[in-house]
Every structure is written in C-alpha cells, then in structure tokens.
C-alpha cells in the first residue's frame, strides 16, 4: 500500500528526515517510535502533504501512484488520513458542517455523488455514540474549546466518517487519560480491516497495548535505526531510546508476509 524509499525532508532548509525506508502493506499496523525531535511528526506531516515540508530526496508510492505529486486534498481523496497531534480549532465552522464539507469534497474528487443529508447525519450520530462523543459537539465550532480528549476523539470520529485507506495517527495517545485512550483505541480498532493500513506515531508503548502493531520502528535523528515486532515497543518502554544500539535488523524492512489481523 505504501512504499517509502530513501525519503529526505527539509523544513526551513534544515534536514529533518535523512533517508527513510518503510514498506506498509494493506492490513498492517506499523508503530513509529522515537524521542522528541527524531522526525516522527515530520514524517506524518510529509505523508499528508504539508506544504512547508520540502522533499529533498526519495520517493513515496501509495497504491502504486506517486504520492508526492499529489496535493494535500488529493491525498485525502485518495484515502490518506492524518489524525493531528494538535487538531486545529476552527471557530465558526461547526463540526457537522466540517464533516459534511470534507466528505462531499472527497466524493466530488472521486467522481461520486453527494451523500444524502439524512443518511449522512444518521451515520455521523451512530459513530458519535460509538466514540461516546456528546452530540452537542456536532453543532459547536470544530474543536473550538474542546478538551484534549474531545479533540482526539473528534479526530477518530473524522477517521470513522471519512473511511480512508491509510490512517496516520500522530501522537493520538498523548494527553489522554486511560478511559479516553481505550475509547480512541476502540474507535481505531473498528476502523481496521484487511484492506486498510495504520501508522501509529507515538512516544509511548501504552497505546500499543490496545492497538497491537505488526512492526515497530525506531526513528532517531531522521533515520529508522531499528525495526522489530510488537515486543520491541515493550523493550523500548523498559530501556528507553538512549540505551538502544542500532541493530542489524535495521533500517530497511520489508514485510514479506503480512499478518492477517483484520
């Protein structure tokens, strides 16, 4: 589904990513871990198409097409979703208006007809109940004055409504209490299927107890220095990033046989 080859990224002429290689197949869950400043969020933002991140080298193929040639909204319509670390507050644009506008723009780009208004609202409300989000938030400004937990839950609501193929969750677990974390994880698990893939960008192992990854990658100084199975996350939790020594099992890992975890 996603193939990142030797990706280099600059921001303000500072090199942040220095040759990332990553293969993600449909149905897989990959976790990207690493200390602050290692480039995790840069990778997430670059994949989503943030214009401030300049690709200096390499290639990204998504479902066989050149992802880097698409702009941000084209990537969204093609099925890429980034759950933001800091969801943006949009006063004056209600949550429902936001969701409807987003979904219909994507459908328009894909040449699909607009969704029936009643079907849409029924679907959204059902997913809100699933995420235990107060229905009143539908009519508030998007993320405006939401608590940290509400913002993150709202990102997952968008994920469930927009139904992308590849979801990148950027520190979605940060700032959540344990109940909120479980709700978010349950929402994401509901999204998983053999046709879809997930990239979890996180500092901590605790989200991975609820969303078990197929592969864990350690990012440091803009490079993947280690890759392994789910157990690697536990090891990092106990030993920290600094004690790691680059293993031979790095930096390029292609999964030959994806797990069936749908």
């Amino acid at each position, binding site marked *: 589904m996603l193939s990142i080859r030797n990706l280099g990224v600059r921001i303000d002429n500072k090199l942040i990513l220095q040759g990332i290689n990553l293969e993600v197949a449909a149905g897989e869950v990959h976790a990207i871990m690493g200390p602050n400043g290692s480039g995790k969020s840069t990778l997430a933002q670059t994949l989503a198409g943030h214009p401030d991140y300049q690709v200096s080298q390499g290639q990204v193929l998504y479902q066989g097409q050149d992802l880097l040639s698409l702009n941000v*909204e084209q990537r*969204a319509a093609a099925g890429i979703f980034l759950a*933001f670390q800091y969801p943006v507050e*949009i*006063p004056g*644009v209600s949550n429902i208006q936001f969701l409807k506008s*987003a979904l219909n723009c994507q459908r328009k780009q894909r040449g699909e007809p607009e969704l029936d208004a009643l079907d849409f609202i029924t679907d959204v409300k059902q997913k809100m109940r699933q995420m235990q989000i107060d229905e009143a938030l539908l009519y508030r*400004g998007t993320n405006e004055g939401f608590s940290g937990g509400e913002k993150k839950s709202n990102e997952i609501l968008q994920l469930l409504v927009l139904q992308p193929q590849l979801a990148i969750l950027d520190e979605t677990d940060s700032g959540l209490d344990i109940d909120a974390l479980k709700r978010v994880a349950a929402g994401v698990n509901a999204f998983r299927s053999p046709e879809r893939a997930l990239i979890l960008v996180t500092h901590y192992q605790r989200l991975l107890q609820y969303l078990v990854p197929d592969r864990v990658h350690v990012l440091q100084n803009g490079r993947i220095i280690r890759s392994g199975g789910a157990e690697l996350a536990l090891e990092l939790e106990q030993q920290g990033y600094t004690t790691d020594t680059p293993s031979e099992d790095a930096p390029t890992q292609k999964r030959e046989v994806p797990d069936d975890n749908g």
Partner: protein
Amino acid sequence: MTMAKRFCELQAHAPPNISGWPWLRAFRQQAQRAFAAQELPTLRQENWKYTNIRSLSETAFSDAPPPGAAELAQAENVQQTQALSLPGYRLTFIAGHFQPQLSQLETLSGAARLLPLKQAFEQEQALVENYLGSAMEYPGQPFAALNSARLEDGVLLYLPANCQLSQPIHCLFYTPSGPHSHVSYPRLLLMLEPGAQAQLIEEYLGDPVPPENAAAQFTCPLSEIILAHDAHLLHGKVLREGPQGHHIAGIHVSQAEQSHLHSISITLGGGICRNDLQVKLHARGAQVRLDGLYMLAGRQHLDNHLRIDHLQAGCRSEVLYKGIIDDRARGVFNGLAVVHPQAQQSDARQINKNLLLSENAEIDTKPELQIDADDVKCSHGATVGQLDKDALFYLGSRGMDQPTARALLTTAFALETLNPLSQGPLREQLAALTGTTLTRQAGGKPPATTSHS
C-alpha cells in the same frame, strides 16, 4: 463646480412646500451656516486622514429629480431581486423620493407614528420640531450639517412608552444609476419613549452592474436615534451601493438610562463610503453593542468611524467590527471610546479584525480609548491577517479543495458578527447575503468598478 459652491447656489431656491414653515426654514438656515463655517474635510484632518473625498467635492451633483417610469420599474425589480425580504413595514425611496406604491405602511395604533418625514412635516409638526436635530452636533460633522441644510424627506418613527413593534421596519433607499450625477439627503428620525422596542433596517442599494456611462451618485443620509429609559432598538444598516455610488452617512444616537442599542452595520459595496456612528450614553445602565462587517473588493473604499461617549457611570459599550478586503480595496476603522470623568464603572470593549485577501488590499485600523475615570474596564484591539495556514492545511487534509476551504474559513470569520442577532428572517438573510458576496469574491468576479483615486 465644487460641492460647497453648488450647495450654496442651490440654497437660493429651497423647495417651496418646505420653506413655508418658518421653523424648518430656520433649522435649515442654521445648518447651512454651520456647514459653510466648516471646510470640506481633507486628508490633513485627523478624522479624514485616510479618506479622500476630493473627487466627490469636485463633482457637480444636482438634486435628484423624482423618478421616471424607467427608474420606477428598475426599483421594483431591485426590490424584488436584490433587497432584503423582511416581514413587516417597508418604506421605499428612489434617490431620496418616497414611493408609496413600493412601500408597505399601516397606521400604527395610539400615539405611535411611522411615516415619511415629508408627510410628518405636515401632520406631526410638533414631534418633528421637538426632536429634529436633538441627537446631533454640527462641529466636526460637516455632512450632518449638509444633510440638515438639505433634508427633504426620510423616515419618522415615534413609539410612545412601552410600545413594542414585533415586526421590523425596512427602509430601502435605492439609487438608480444614470448619466447624470445626483445627490440625495435622506433623514431618519427615530424616537423611542420609555420601554418601547423596535427593529429598523436601513438598506442602501444601487445597481450592482451599472451601465458603462454611469455617472457618480452621492447619498448623504443622517439618522438620529433617541432612546429613552429602557427603550430597546435593533438598528441595522446594509450598504450595497453600486461602484459609482458614493455614500457619506451619519448615525447619531442619544441613549438614556437602561436603554439598549444593538447596531449591525454591513457594507458590501459602494464607491467612496463612510459611516460616522456617534453614540452618547447619557445615563446609568445604558448599553450599546456595535457590530460591523465589511467585505470590500475592486477599488471600494470604506471608512467606519465610531465614537462612543460614556458620559455617566455604569454604562457598557461593546464593538466588534470585522472586515474582509480583497483586490485593491481599502478599509478604514477608527473607533474611539471616551470615558468621561464621572463615568465610573464603565465597561468599554472594542475589537476590529481584518482579513486581507490580496497583496494590494489595505486596512488602516485605529481603535482608541480615552479614559478620564479610574474605576473602569476597558479593552481594545485590532488584528490584520491572512487566513490561518494551519486551518487551511487541516481542512485540506480532510479533502477540501482550496476554494472550498478558503470560503469556509472566510464565511466563518464573517458570520461571527451576526452571532448576537437572534434567529429569524433578518439573521438568515444577512447570512445569505454574506455568503453570496463571499462566493462572488471567491469566484474572482467582483462587481465592475472604476477608479476614483
């Protein structure tokens, strides 16, 4: 011929039907002297620093004649297709002339009065004579003096104590475009006695796409608003003149104890436009909320000048003006809250926020506070910026194309000014009008404009 000269010449033959009343003639003559005693404003005056009216003062405007059949038909069309469609009372004017056949008026019960000002001169002389000019001052307000010297028609609203009108009053002033330059001086006189309540909307409309040879038009209205104890008024003003429609207006308000004014001013089109809004909070507990929204494109120029005087203790004023400026348009915001020495426990807030959508758009913003009391809560602020890049990226990452994302954010920015309005036809229609204007701006099709620099 300059406006000042032209004005003096026209004074030689004031309309006979009005000059008959000595009190009105005296009123006009006094205003004429006040006008003649002032120079027309230039950029050298602080209050007019950003608004150049030289092209206006060098145009020979003659008094607009009564409309012919063509103008009447055009006005009817504009009223049906362009104007707000509100339930309730409507008074329609073409180039300052009242049009009974395009109006909806009924006699109000008891002592309440709503009628064209010219008719009020005859039928309600005592009321008019008592209140006309009572909420305004001439010094520093040459156009208020000019309007007073030239006034012929307009609107009189008088509500006795506790009279509450449930339906809004819609005053529509249509200025037809044509090959000759005309001027009109509408005058509105609104008096609400204790406990009275009303909603009144002034709407100024021109032809959005005037013919090629359209000459400059000038409208110079003045509204006087007198609110007695506990009177409540919602006053709306919608300005949509054509690109050749110049507009210099005054709204002068005098508020008594516990009275409330909510003013919403929306400017969507015009040539050189200026609104002078002057509010005097005379007694404890008077409250005023001034909301404004301007969306300028082409080469429009809009100057919003607000002044609120807190004259006694315990009054409150709140100002939120927002602007979206595109192309080579230019906006000016000047808001001054003056807290006088005896006005302790005053609460005065002022915010002006602007979005500049093009590199050549300009806003000159100056919120000011002048505080001569020590126990007050006052704040003011102004922002000028572009659309939030993070928000644009966020919307894009959910699949919204740039035009949709920009339109969504600009609309949200604009509609904040309508939030204090209660749900109903007025709010719906102002929101719809805002949306249409933004769509037109986003589509890169601002109305045809001509240079006036």
